[in-house]
């Protein structure tokens, strides 16, 4: 099983993702420069966090036009796994691979903090090894993480069990006070209808070592690797 981590100009969590795949998942991983278009040797692609194209125009708006994204769309259309973290989530929304959009945080601040998120759905290739309703501690680092969508989209996400993570307090209650950025319905992560594309604002790849304050993110990558191993 081989992983690819896409690198845009301005990506800055690409090495974190690479580190986690090689060290904790223990699988081969490549960086994929955004001008490369051949994804045929990969089983899963990670769109990492960062500030692709300096967040010019809108976060993720310009990265969407990089040549690699056409390949990512084709890769995903074949049912392959795509995980977008933070800026990666923003790019997937801009590219239309996930619904909704991520706008400026409610209080306008860039937030760099550890937050609690509740596992809403374990019915995804990225979360099946997690416990439904459990609370994970993961860092966030973003200015534009405020998830918005229209009522019809929210209904659809709920109906189809596509809300994967929600911001919550320590007890797992998705309160307004526990919502760091104003996201609709406290949404921190969602998946597409086919469930092979997931985007989330928190950083599981930066929560894989106790030394960094949390290792709760490991289960996301363990789930991902487990899915690939089962398919192999």
């Amino acid at each position, binding site marked *: 099983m081989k992983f690819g981590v896409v690198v845009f100009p301005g990506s800055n969590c690409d090495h974190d993702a690479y580190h986690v795949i090689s060290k904790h998942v223990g699988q081969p991983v490549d960086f994929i420069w955004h001008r490369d278009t051949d994804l045929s040797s990969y089983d899963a692609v990670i769109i990492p966090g960062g500030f692709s194209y300096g967040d010019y*125009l809108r976060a993720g*708006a310009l990265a969407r036009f990089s040549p690699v994204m056409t390949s990512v769309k084709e890769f995903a259309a074949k049912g392959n796994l795509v995980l977008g973290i933070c800026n990666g989530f923003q790019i997937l*929304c801009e590219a239309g691979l996930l619904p909704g959009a991520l*706008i400026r945080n409610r209080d*306008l601040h860039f937030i760099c903090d550890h937050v609690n998120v509740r596992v809403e759905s374990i019915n995804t290739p990225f979360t099946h090894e997690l416990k439904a309703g459990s609370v994970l501690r993961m860092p966030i680092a973003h200015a534009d993480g405020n998830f*918005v969508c*229209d009522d019809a989209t929210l209904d659809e996400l709920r109906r189809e069990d596509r809300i994967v993570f929600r911001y919550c307090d320590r007890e797992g209650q998705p309160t307004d006070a526990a919502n760091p950025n104003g996201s609709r319905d406290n949404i921190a992560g969602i998946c597409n209808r086919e469930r092979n594309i997931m985007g989330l604002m928190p950083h599981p790849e930066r929560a894989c070592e106790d030394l960094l304050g949390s290792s709760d993110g490991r289960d996301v990558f363990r789930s991902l690797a487990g899915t690939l191993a089962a398919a192999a």
Partner: protein
Amino acid sequence: MKAKVYVTLKPSVLDPQGKAIKHSVELLGFDGISDIRQGKYFEIAIEGPLNAEQAREEAVRMAHDVLSNPIIEDFRVEIEE
């Protein structure tokens, strides 16, 4: 020829930046302000054989596909000959 594109958040989308600007403006003593919405403005210089109508079509396509995110934003195009 110039295309002017105005991109604004849809009325249903909260604009925290606009709200903060309104607050500052009020601190300066401006009153009677009911709302401020922040948007983006683009000037696109167009050369070549396009007539105004064709230029508008091009600008609308650019505004829809790149300059705005139709999920959260509206846009308006003006052509200046």
